[in-house]
């Protein structure tokens, strides 16, 4: 029998409306008890959490682990460990690998590799369409049976509205959320950054907000039509936030993500063609960034996800238009979210835990996201006031592509437990 007793921490668990100093007892990989001055028998591992925040394990529903096919950027093992180092106890792995995860065997491979990783739990996502071609639906039933928790063609939109309608309808049989990357490729064509004055100055082709907005509008209508579960990934525009808010108010089943980079940066971060600030959807204007922050605050964007997108140094070391999209995010998410949202008093700490743990678990029907007795013993310990400098050289991820190198942030996960086992501790502690 394995026992862990976490004592004296500030337990923040919005799923139970908890925010108080309590002890937490984990037994055999499950939460056993929460209470004051808990006692435990000899041989129990004790963790002194005084001064720390104890939360249900953080869950990132949008990460790219690059395996199979991109193992020089990240492997399932390195990604799961990087996740743990960022305070995440579970991640949802995007299926746009090469080959894509569009069949049960591939889903099984990701799941098995995740189990061996020694880091965060890895939940596979399957594709919406075969080969992510946007034409024929993948076998959702089989994918789910093999362990897929959502279907998504992320990296690409489903351009055919008819196919998207069928996906939302068909997924109803399995109660699967359909996760979507919203981009009208005819509107974004050739673009490498946000359309606006910065793109005009730099002579780069812009991607208008409308490229994202028209697809968000379309899919909200389709979700309304079908009653399907729609999950909108990495929302970057003010109009997108507004439309989701309105759709939710009239009962559309929609959840949506904000990423730390979209609520922290604007297209000004691209400065002189910094490829580490190149991503899709692109960094937008200050009004868009503020709308995303507001969306997080009022719960329109109910999930914070990183869109962790590792790339090898050489691949980003190119002329801007030729460089791939994406930044790594697992190990910077807590620091940025705490600094940008909590320490600025835009939201309180329980709301952050809601966005990074409870809501993601609900949106994808995952175990976790709560410290209720009987739940998985996935726990994150956060030092809310620890100031540190983001140093990509310290990342456990195989990649270093971040625009946040050298940035001072406040707040950091210091210990991560998955199934009652510590999978990561901040070395200096």
């Amino acid at each position, binding site marked *: 029998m394995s026992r862990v007793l976490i004592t004296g921490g500030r337990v923040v668990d919005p799923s139970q409306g908890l925010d108080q100093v309590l002890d937490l007892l984990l037994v055999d990989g499950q939460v056993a008890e929460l209470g004051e001055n808990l006692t435990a028998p000899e041989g129990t591992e004790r963790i002194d959490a005084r001064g720390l925040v104890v939360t249900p394990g953080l869950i990132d529903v949008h990460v790219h682990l690059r395996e199979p096919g991109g193992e020089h950027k990240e492997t399932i093992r390195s990604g799961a460990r990087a996740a743990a180092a960022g305070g995440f106890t579970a991640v949802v792995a995007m299926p746009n690998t090469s080959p894509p995860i569009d069949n049960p065997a591939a889903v099984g491979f990701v799941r098995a590799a995740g189990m061996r990783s020694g880091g965060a739990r890895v939940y596979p996502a399957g594709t919406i369409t075969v080969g992510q071609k946007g034409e024929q639906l993948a076998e959702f039933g089989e994918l789910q049976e093999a362990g897929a928790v959502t279907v998504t063609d992320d990296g690409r939109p489903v351009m055919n509205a008819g196919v998207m309608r069928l996906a939302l309808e068909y997924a109803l049989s399995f109660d699967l959320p359909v996760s979507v990357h919203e981009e009208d490729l005819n509107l974004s064509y050739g673009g490498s950054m946000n359309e606006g004055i910065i793109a005009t100055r*730099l002579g780069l082709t812009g991607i208008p907000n409308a490229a994202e907005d028209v697809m968000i509008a379309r899919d909200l209508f389709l979700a309304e039509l079908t009653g399907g579960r729609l999950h909108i990934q990495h929302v970057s525009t003010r109009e997108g936030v507004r439309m989701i808010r309105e759709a939710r108010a009239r009962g559309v089943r929609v959840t949506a993500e904000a990423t730390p980079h979209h609520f922290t940066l604007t297209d000004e971060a691209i400065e002189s*063609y910094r490829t580490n600030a190149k991503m899709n959807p692109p960094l937008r204007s200050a009004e868009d960034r503020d709308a995303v922050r507001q969306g997080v605050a009022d719960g329109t964007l109910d999930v914070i996800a990183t869109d962790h997108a590792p790339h090898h140094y050489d691949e980003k070391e190119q002329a801007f238009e030729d460089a791939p999209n994406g930044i790594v995010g697992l190990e910077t998410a807590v620091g940025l979210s705490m600094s940008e949202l909590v320490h600025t008093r835009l939201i309180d700490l329980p709301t952050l835990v809601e966005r990074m743990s409870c809501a993601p678990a609900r949106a994808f029907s995952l175990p976790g996201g709560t410290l209720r007795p009987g739940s998985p013993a996935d726990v994150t310990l956060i030092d809310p006031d620890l100031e540190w400098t983001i140093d990509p050289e310290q990342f456990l991820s195989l990649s270093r592509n971040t625009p946040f190198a050298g940035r001072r942030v406040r707040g950091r996960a210091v210990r991560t437990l998955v199934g009652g086992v510590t999978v990561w501790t901040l070395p200096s502690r």
Partner: protein
Amino acid sequence: MAQALFPPLGKDLVGLEGLTREQIIGILDTAEPFKEISERPIKKVPVLRGKTIVNAFFENSTRTRISFEFAEKRLSADTVNFSAGGSSVAKGETLVDTARNLEAMRIDMVVIRHSSSGAARFLGERIASNVVNAGDGKHEHPTQALLDMLTIRDHLGRLEGVKVCIVGDILHSRVARSNIIGLRTVGAEVAVCGPATLMPARIEELGVTVFRRVEEAIEWADVLNVLRLQLERMQAGFVPSLREYNRVFGITEERLARAPRQLLILHPGPMNRGVEIDSAVADGPHSVILQQVTNGVAVRMAVLYLLAGGKPEAAEAAKTEVAL
């Protein structure tokens, strides 16, 4: 004529953005004495003797390359041409590899032309040699704008307060961007005119007036800088047809006849006669298109000379040294 207050250009000339009025005027002033070298029987001065310059053209442009080559040769530099237009290697890889190779070869200067915006800066940040941008994507083409300004100054005697309208595909034009930035820095008024589909987002924020109709532009301007319409823009749907483009935005004799004053007509070339400009205008009395070509060599000589550490006030003396 040379300016006493000329702040050195720095290592590279990536664009006109960031240059001061004094620097731009200093380049133009330096070009003046160099113009005369092209008129001599022996068109060579020893200003860059012993320097090695690579013309790295990742995108075809015979005109610009030849203009730079003439400039380099007239300054007695050793030149090597490198073109990777037909290379099967991916663009980005080539650029990094090129940077490493150039660095290893201890080249003094690199003139780069590339289809990616930011390529010149990219190279400049990675090598110790001086880098001159000969056009990068849709970003800047500084020496073209400088030769345009020199040509305007030759004819109007000034740049300050001159009204210049750039007509055509502003969206894809590095020439337009460099002209806007350069001309505004030296105090000219700048407008742009063209189909809304070929206008970059929020272009007014660069401090330019936007005309929707070319008639309004002609009424307003002292100078028209007419841009080439890339024929592929029509295929991509930015304009419905070349015929319609000529009808609506073409610079024709009839339109110019209605101008309240005589306009100076510039065109960076090569021209699509009968599309953005009619032959009668291109070959007419107000066209300074061929003089732009001549000035191009002088401006490029000035830029190379200044990046190599020359001073505007010494240019006259430098060119009188006897060439070998």
